[in-house]
């Protein structure tokens, strides 16, 4: 069998016990990249030479019996909105096309400390704003299952890279569904941890109160393995959670223990907006859980439908402020011949930011403007609280909520680019989760008639990643 067919955990175990060489696995993924990525376009940059050097080091260490990390020798990809001292950190924007970060994101440091091999940086919607990776200013990424379709977004490059076996796992970021939706479209597992579980330090900010880094993997065990490495408090991120409040655990070690007395909530109102085939797949998944002994509870989430509206005020308000720093003054793109310093700002930003980014900056600026703040931003915060309340109420009745990750399977390239609102609606099931800050996972649960993967979304209460992963694993095992 081909090395690239292994899961990250299988590979790690093989490397550790000496039966597989990290260097061979690394060669294998680069072969895969060289074979397929010209078509798929998942990577913005790759580091073959350095990756092989690092892989050989790990192999040598193991040969000498020296201790190695939890991701020893596993070739991985990271979304290009995480700062790395190697390569560029572009956010798929002309603005940062040549930007080299002088520091590593905390997550990158953790991956490196765990001896992962970072083989490349993946494409995304510019500054993570989008649901199809079509907003990348640098590259077009297609869905490995059907090259006429989008991989989803904004972590489309990471999802496509994992799906096409061009890496063993990848890191993405999720502000409104940007890990889960592409995972769903590409038929891989994608976890958005609880807000505060993983440090955001070095993740280029889009919507700071919503952004969260998480893994895209081949299966749920790999997901747990990755979470073990990246989770934890970071003194550089004040919003990362104190481990006394939310203790860490060995998620991998507990992954195969089924949840006893499992209660699963479903929200019938939410099935209405989804494709029939997607709904059927979700309903079959619910049946699987029933057979496993789970009790199904039907609940209402009365404020769910306002999530998109609230999200596009809160996320854009934060984005308008977070992206103000890209001004052509200190780093990044600068216009060629500014007449004065005002033109450094206006022309640099106008020339280097894409249409969707501009749209969101304008929306957010408007929402925060004097005279509109109360009606938009403040009201959105109130809605956010109501949505949180919906989730709190749900978790009093059930261990988790199940719903589709996306109302459709992967759509055609160009299908929604002309209509931003249609694009926004594709995040209808994922956005509320970010507003509530709770963890959620997307796992494959079948295919539609076009042989496109369908994603099942499972949502748990804050810091209940343990339960979430175990519930997901129950389905994966039964499947």
């Amino acid at each position, binding site marked *: 069998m081909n090395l690239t067919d292994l899961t990250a955990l299988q590979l790690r175990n093989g490397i550790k016990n000496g039966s597989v060489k990290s260097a061979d696995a690394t060669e294998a993924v680069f072969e895969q990249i060289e074979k397929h990525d010209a078509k798929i376009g998942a990577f913005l940059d790759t580091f073959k030479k350095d990756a092989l050097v690092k892989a050989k080091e790990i192999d040598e260490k193991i040969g000498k019996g020296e201790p190695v990390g939890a991701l020893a020798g596993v070739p991985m990809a990271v979304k290009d909105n995480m700062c790395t001292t190697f390569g560029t950190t572009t956010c798929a924007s002309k603005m940062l096309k040549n930007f080299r970060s*002088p520091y590593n994101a905390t997550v990158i440091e953790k991956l490196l400390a765990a001896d992962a091999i970072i083989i490349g940086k993946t494409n995304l919607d510019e500054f993570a704003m989008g649901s199809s990776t079509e907003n990348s200013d640098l590259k077009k990424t297609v869905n490995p299952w059907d090259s006429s379709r989008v991989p989803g977004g904004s972590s489309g490059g990471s999802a496509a890279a994992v799906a096409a076996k061009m890496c063993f796992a990848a890191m993405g970021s999720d502000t409104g569904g940007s890990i889960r939706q592409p995972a769903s479209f590409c038929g891989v597992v994608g976890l958005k941890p609880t807000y505060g579980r993983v440090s955001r330090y070095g993740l280029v900010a889009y919507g*700071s109160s919503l952004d969260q880094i998480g893994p895209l993997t081949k299966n749920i065990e790999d997901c747990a393995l990755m979470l073990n490495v990246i989770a934890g408090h970071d003194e550089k991120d*004040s*919003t990362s959670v104190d481990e006394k409040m939310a203790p860490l655990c060995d998620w991998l070690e507990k992954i195969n223990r089924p949840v006893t007395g499992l209660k699963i909530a479903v929200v019938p109102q939410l099935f209405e907006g989804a494709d029939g085939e997607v709904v059927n797949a979700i309903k079959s998944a619910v049946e699987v859980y029933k057979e496993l002994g789970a009790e199904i509870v039907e609940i209402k989430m009365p404020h769910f439908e306002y999530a998109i509206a609230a999200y596009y005020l809160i996320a854009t308000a934060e984005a308008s*402020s977070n992206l*103000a*720093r890209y001004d052509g003054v200190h*780093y990044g793109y600068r216009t060629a011949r500014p007449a004065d310093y005002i033109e450094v700002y206006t022309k640099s930003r106008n020339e280097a930011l894409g249409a969707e980014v501009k749209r969101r900056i304008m929306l957010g600026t408007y929402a925060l403007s004097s005279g509109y*703040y109360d009606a938009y931003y403040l009201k959105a915060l109130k809605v956010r609280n109501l949505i949180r309340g919906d989730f709190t109420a749900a978790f009093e009745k059930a261990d988790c909520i199940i719903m589709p990750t996306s109302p459709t399977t992967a759509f055609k390239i160009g299908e929604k680019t002309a209509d931003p609102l249609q694009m926004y609606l594709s995040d209808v099931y994922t956005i509320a989760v970010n507003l509530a800050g709770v963890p959620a996972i997307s796992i494959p649960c079948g295919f539609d008639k076009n042989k496109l993967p369908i994603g099942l979304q499972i949502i748990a209460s804050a810091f209940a990643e343990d339960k979430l992963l175990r519930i997901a694993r129950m389905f994966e095992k039964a499947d």
Partner: protein
Amino acid sequence: MANVDYKIIVGLEIHVQLATRTKMFCGCELIFAAQPNSRVCPVCLGLPGALPVMNRQAVEFAILTAVAINCKIAEFTKWDRKSYYYPDLPKNYQISQYDLPIGSNGFIGIPLPDGKVKKVRIRRVHLEEDAGKNLHTAENCSQVDLNRAGTPLLEIVTEPDINSAEEVKLLAIELQRIVRFLGVSEADMQKGHMRFEPNVNLHIKKDDTEYKTPITEIKNLNSFKVLEKSAVFEVRRQLDEFLESGIVLQSGNKKTFGWDDVREVTVLQREKEEAHDYRYFPDPDLVPVVINEKWLAEIKAELCELPLTMQERFVSGYGLSDYDAGVLTADRTTAEYFDNAVKAGGDAKRVCNLITQTGLKIANEKGYKVSELGISPQRLAELAGMVETGQISATASVTIFEKMMESKNSPQQIAESLNLLQKNDEGELGKIVDKVIASNPQAARDVKSGDKKSKKAHGFLMGQVMQKTKGTANPQVVAKILNSKLNKGI
């Protein structure tokens, strides 16, 4: 000056740089005049992905200051982003505090020259980060130094309770004294640690009607002298403008001025109050700050006796003049040094004189504090005692003071070794006086005569005695003996 009554109305905004070790939201050290852009990191450079982390020390300094100026301390406060584009502001927003400042509704007492204390209300006290500096190095070229970016600044805003240019200056000086006492700021004007922005206007009485002149804000003043001068100038300018044009305060006609240090005039910067929209909103990268009772109590425990209270105590308790008490309390260590010497038994006036007339002069020359000259308060009290009892002269006390700085010996020992102890023994001195009178009969007669030669002759005889005792006789005792001996016959 036209014949009109007017009242000066001033409110003051003050930015005080806090003396924390590191910046407000990152670990960069605060060092003045370091190589440009050498004290920077991803956070204060505003690089992609960098996140701020609150400096707890800065918050504690802010709370301490707010307590000292009698503010109500917020139980819950937060950080807000204030958005505007300027090259010295790397994120193009400043982390500040908008609607929930750390302190509010306080007051500061300022000592006036007539001995009274004026209360000026404090509207709010909040923390924020400073911006960097734009350097215009050449024609068509500007550079940005971000060493200062992220420096913790305390913004203090008063109510418009100040009614003269002198009061503006006195408030600034008093605030400097307070923050230095608290140790929260070096408050070094040369280093720009305090910056002032007065808002000035006049309430003019003319023909039984009160007119208010348009408010002007004078930006970025960084010395007490300029602060006072600019206020004086602005009062005059507004009065002239009103008399000439009759323009009065209206919504939107606030003007912004700068100060031209060469011409010593205020210069118009912005004609109309711009409708700034800073789009404040809570910074999602930082968590709110809860100031609970326990924390507040810990901070309050750090509160020292404040300068004005100390000054008043020195006057009422120790009988010092207001001036002397003011000089001593200009600096906390000096004031405490004085206080400790008095508590160690030193006579207050004598200790004060030793400090203000001898100690401060030496300390200033050396660039030290008086308390750092190597003389313990106990020893200083002993020295003061020796002057008080006449064991040494005031002149000798200076010599002894200087010796004490390098010696562990007591002032008594030093005085002995340098032969500076005064002879006070009336019997011994009486004999010497007798000899001097005997050898100078004419002078003795002149003194006795009581006429115009008397005073000169008295001085001559005193000089003879001092010469015979090599200057060690206590002149007061000698004079007393001379008087008693030469007046006997009258």
